[in-house]
């Protein structure tokens, strides 16, 4: 069975196909989040009082903690790739394990943040829910799903490294790393957009708003 087409070749650029595919996927992910940010910008500008009050209500300390957890886990992810490339399996396990812990830490903080919002009746359908909180749950919720989606293959790779055959696919870890850094990137935008960009001087008092 011969075919005139040979579709199995590597691209001329020698960029690994998985890596290129991940960048293409991330480009589509960027457009997915752009939809949220676009709608957020439009509706913030037309409902700035609602968005200001909602934003003022959020827990900046928890979000700041999560920001540090994410940038820390980005660093450990990058170091785990480097160690697997070097063949240092012990350090690869250590740093990937720390990255997984970071992912779980992020989700635990998120759980406490969300339960606070539930307690204050801010969930959709609850009495104090506003348009702002629709965005809050949509953007942070999809972001948290991305964190879960990153942690699952990490756990697989980490456990696989303990088996007899081990885990020796640095390019795959690098590809997953790209995804993980992207999750960090989106948080870098979500954090100031939702938590910090309050359209009035909060210290001067939120309630005085016309």
């Amino acid at each position: 069975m011969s075919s005139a087409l040979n579709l199995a070749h590597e691209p001329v650029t020698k960029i690994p196909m998985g890596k290129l595919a991940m960048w293409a996927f991330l480009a589509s992910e960027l457009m997915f989040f752009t939809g949220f940010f676009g709608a957020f910008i439009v509706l913030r500008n037309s409902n700035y009082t609602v968005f200001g009050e909602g934003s003022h209500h959020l827990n900046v300390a928890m979000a700041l903690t999560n920001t540090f957890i994410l940038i820390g886990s980005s660093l450990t992810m990058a170091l785990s790739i480097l160690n697997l490339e070097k063949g240092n399996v012990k350090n690869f396990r250590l740093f990937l394990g720390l990255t997984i812990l970071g992912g779980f830490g992020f989700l635990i903080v998120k759980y406490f943040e969300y339960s606070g919002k539930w307690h204050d009746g801010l969930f959709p359908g609850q009495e104090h829910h506003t348009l702002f909180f629709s965005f809050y749950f949509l953007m942070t919720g999809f972001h948290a799903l991305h964190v879960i989606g990153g942690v699952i293959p990490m756990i697989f790779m980490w456990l696989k490294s303990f088996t007899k055959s081990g885990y020796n696919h640095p390019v795959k870890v690098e590809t997953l790393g790209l995804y993980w850094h992207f999750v960090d990137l989106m948080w870098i935008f979500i954090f100031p957009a939702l938590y910090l960009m309050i359209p009035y001087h909060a210290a001067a008092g939120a309630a005085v708003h016309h």
Partner: protein
Amino acid sequence: MGHDHGNVIKSYMQVFYALAVLTLLTVGAAMLPFPHEWGTPGDILHVSIGVAIAVVKVIAVMWVFMHLKFDHPMLRFFVYVPVFLFSVMTFALNFLESWAYTR
């Protein structure tokens, strides 16, 4: 691969410290006691500072953590396009919309 590992770790650490400092800076800047009522130049400044710091952080992550610095120029081009579209769309929306509502 190919490059000196010691130097790579050094640049990873530099990016990590830069991200930490810029995170604190963005929170600090958001708490600066200047009036930023919606639609005033203060609000535009307030938002612009936040966006500018986020952009610096994102470039640092993509350039070093996501290895664009070490990657093929073709791949870099492949990344610039969606990032450009994202920036144009968000900036255009932000300015057109706030202009439309403050008019």
